[in-house]
């Protein structure tokens, strides 16, 4: 197990990158703490797989260095990095039994047969495949195969990190939940550093201690699921995380007064003069629908009932607004105003979060 340090890391698939746009992964400094569970979250093509491949050693970064503890492994081969990887679809050795699959990495490293036997037994218990140990790997279900390929990684005690490249893609929905829970339990038990790439926010938020949100080659925010929810560092994070995503309103902010096209409101923080495009970000959970005259007028388009709450789709100033209304609230035709929970309103300048001074 090791701390992984990315220092000034950047990667471009073009040999002579000229502008920022040519980089699949833009300059990045980050330390992955030893033993933590991270999720790399972002839409397709945001650079998360590039980053994962750099860590696993499939790709050599065009700039910067990568360190495992204090060792520079930037140019080290995958085999020498001592990492484990679980791929998008199950990679198992079909002609071997489950036991042989689990033994394989240890055998290749010339481990003592007694140790192998004991280690395989303990891993088989952890990933709950004891009952199928002597079955051929070929006939197993996708989730069992994924567990085996995970087990093949974990069977080595000295493994530096386990990388997951969207490992739940081919798993049936009802097994996804179970596998994710098992993964989390395994992480608690064995304390491996785990990096989990996904484009599914639920997966990321339930699995990880810390979520790294990426967009267009940039790391936009690294934080706990709570931080991402309450204080998205970039409007993209606001959109991408949450269902529906954060509402963004054009506004002018002077001091602690925000002006939404004539509707003024008092912020909980006071800001110095802001230059650039100013916006307010409010999550649908923190907007309340109320009677006419109590707040800002909106046009309701439709109401969707999604079991535990209702989503109100509305329009304000030609822009979509989403509001989450608790299940027990009855929406009447006269409820066409909205108010914000002002303590949960974030201010963005040029899409990035700005923190003002707290008003005491």
């Amino acid at each position, binding site marked *: 197990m090791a701390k992984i340090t990315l220092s000034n890391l950047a990667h471009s698939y073009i040999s002579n990158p000229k502008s920022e746009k040519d980089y699949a992964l833009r300059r990045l400094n980050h330390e992955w703490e030893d033993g933590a569970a991270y999720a790399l979250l972002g839409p397709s093509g945001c650079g998360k797989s590039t980053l994962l491949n750099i860590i696993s050693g499939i790709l050599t970064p065009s700039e910067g260095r990568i360190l495992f503890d204090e060792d520079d492994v930037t140019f080290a081969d*995958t085999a020498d990095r001592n990492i484990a990887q679980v791929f*998008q*679809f199950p990679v198992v050795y*079909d002609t071997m039994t489950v036991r042989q699959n689990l033994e394989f*990495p240890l055998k*290749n490293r010339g481990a003592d047969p007694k140790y192998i036997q004991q280690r395989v037994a303990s891993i088989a218990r952890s990933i709950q495949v004891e009952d199928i140990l002597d079955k051929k790997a070929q006939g197993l279900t996708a989730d069992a195969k994924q567990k085996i*390929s995970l087990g*093949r990684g974990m069977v080595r005690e000295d493994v530096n990190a386990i990388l997951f490249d969207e490992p739940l893609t081919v798993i049936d929905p009802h097994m996804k939940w179970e596998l994710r829970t098992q993964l989390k339990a395994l992480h608690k038990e064995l304390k491996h550093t785990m990096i989990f790439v996904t484009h599914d926010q639920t997966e990321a938020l339930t699995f990880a201690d810390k979520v790294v949100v990426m967009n267009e080659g940039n790391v936009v925010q690294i934080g706990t699921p709570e931080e991402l929810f309450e204080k998205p560092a970039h409007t993209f994070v606001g959109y991408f995380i949450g269902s529906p995503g954060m509402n963004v309103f054009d506004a002018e902010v002077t001091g602690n007064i925000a002006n939404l096209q004539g509707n003024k409101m008092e912020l909980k923080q006071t800001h110095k003069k802001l230059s650039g495009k100013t916006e307010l970000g409010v999550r649908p959970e923190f907007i309340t629908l109320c009677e006419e005259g109590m707040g800002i007028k909106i046009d309701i388009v439709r109401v969707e009932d999604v079991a535990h709450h209702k989503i109100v789709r509305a329009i304000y100033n030609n822009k979509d607004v989403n509001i989450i209304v608790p299940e027990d609230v009855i929406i009447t035709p006269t409820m066409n105003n909205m108010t914000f929970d002002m303590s949960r309103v974030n201010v963005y300048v040029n899409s990035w979060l700005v923190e003002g001074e707290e008003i005491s």
Partner: protein
Amino acid sequence: MKKTVNQKAWFLVLPVLLLVGFSAVIPLMTVVNYSIQDTFGNNVFFEVGLEWFEEVLHSERLHDALGRQMLFTGIIMVIEIPLGIYIALHMPKSGFWASVCLVLVSLPLLVPWNVVGTIWQIFGRTDIGLLGHTLAAMGVEYNYTQDVLSAWITLIVMDVWHWTSLVVLLCYAGLQSIPGAYYQAAKIDQASKWSVFRYIQLPKMMGVLLIASLLRFMDSFMIYTEPMVVTGGGPGNATTFLSIDLVKMAIGQFDLGPAAAFSLIYFLVILLMSWAFFTIMTNIDKQEA
């Protein structure tokens, strides 16, 4: 599901039935017809029952030809299958050179069979052939028209040259279908090159290898044109394989009865061996699974 009974539907299969009848059943039946009759000329035939079959089954000539045939098929398969796998493994996987290799490898398959025979017939001649003349100049005793070993080597090398490409192409296609993640995982597991072959590449190639082996078995068991052009079955009867012998008997000697019985037995032998081959291979495949 409830099926409607409509006997008129039989008419829909009639065209295929007719086609198969004219292309396969009727010609085969004429052979069957010949195999149970004899003639002393003047187009007068009389029935002889299974006499021809008995004669052919006990004939030394057929046994020898069958033995030569099996030896030939055995040798070329033992060479072509591993060689094909080896070449496929070492071909570039992508880019310009992959295309170049594919075209070069496919070339022998595009040459008509009698041309292949002619090429090697001339290539091996000691007076004007590049190979034969060079060998002769080097002092190697090589003459496929007189020496049995030379004739066999020539035919085997020719078949390997002509048909290994088929095995290569099929294996190459099988290899290309293996996702990169498998190799990546093997690297992470520090698998040796042999392990990668044994546990990843070979299992993924089993399906195409089965087809390749079956095709090579059937084709080589029925080989006619190439050895006919190169050696004509000689020297003596050294390279007279089943089909060459059959043609000699049917068209050369015009022994229609025995030849018909011979071809039916030949057909059954191929059918039986292909079936046995296929069953064994699929069973191996299942055991692997």
